[in-house]
């Protein structure tokens, strides 16, 4: 599991590569939640290379969503693979999140929000 985080001009981009299981979700939690504490900004989570997610990964996403809403910022999930999308659907999570088909769409969405 590889987690990369970089700050762009209008938000933070987190790229997930591998499997978000019970073991690896802790590292993701550190990156996502600590980053939000340090500097509140919009977040895009690029899931194009994420091939697996369990309830532990969903728990981190939900905690992140709650935190970012309290900060009046936006979190966008981008480029979900079909298996990951299916797990989100079965959990009843899909309606809670902003989901974009690609990283480019997610960036455009943040740009649109920034322009008001």
């Amino acid at each position, binding site marked *: *599991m590889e987690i990369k985080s970089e700050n762009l001009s209008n938000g933070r981009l987190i790229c997930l590569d591998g*499997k978000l*299981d*019970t*073991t*690896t979700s802790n590292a993701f939690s550190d990156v996502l939640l600590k980053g939000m504490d340090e500097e509140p900004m919009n977040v895009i989570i690029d899931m194009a290379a994420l091939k*697996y997610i*369990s*309830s*532990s990964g*969903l*728990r981190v996403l*939900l905690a992140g*969503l*709650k935190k970012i*809403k309290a900060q009046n910022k936006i979190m966008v999930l981008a480029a979900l693979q079909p*298996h990951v999308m299916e*797990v989100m659907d*079965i*959990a*009843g999570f899909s309606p*809670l999140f902003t989901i974009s088909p690609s990283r480019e769409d997610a960036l455009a969405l943040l740009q649109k929000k920034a322009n008001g």
Partner: protein
Amino acid sequence: MPALDVELKNDLCEITRLLNLVEQFAKDTGLPDDALNAVMLSLDEAVTNTINYGFPGGGIHCIRLTLRREPDSITSIIEDDGIPFNPLEAPEADLTSPIEDRPIGGLGIHFIRNYMDELYYRREDGKNIFTLVKKIS
């Protein structure tokens, strides 16, 4: 009939190893991708639950996992000597509350019910034996 037999410790770090073993077994036995995802998710959730709640007295315990690949199904058997727990009796997850009070607990068994075709539980010789069957279409 190809089979895999592994012993896991009651340590959450074992989950990544578990998933890698299942993935390799799937590759070796030509398991379709959908079934692999279903089995990985169900075993991740079930074993995580056992590690988190099965051993309130602490100590090192062994969780035994057996996978059997049959032509039209894959069967997983999880055996542990934790406190008696029948996952089939777990309550349904809350999937509709607003996010502020959405409880995350219960999602694991919800996934298992959704992704598996047959589930069996029995308590035998002080052990929980949980059997999960995924049909392969």
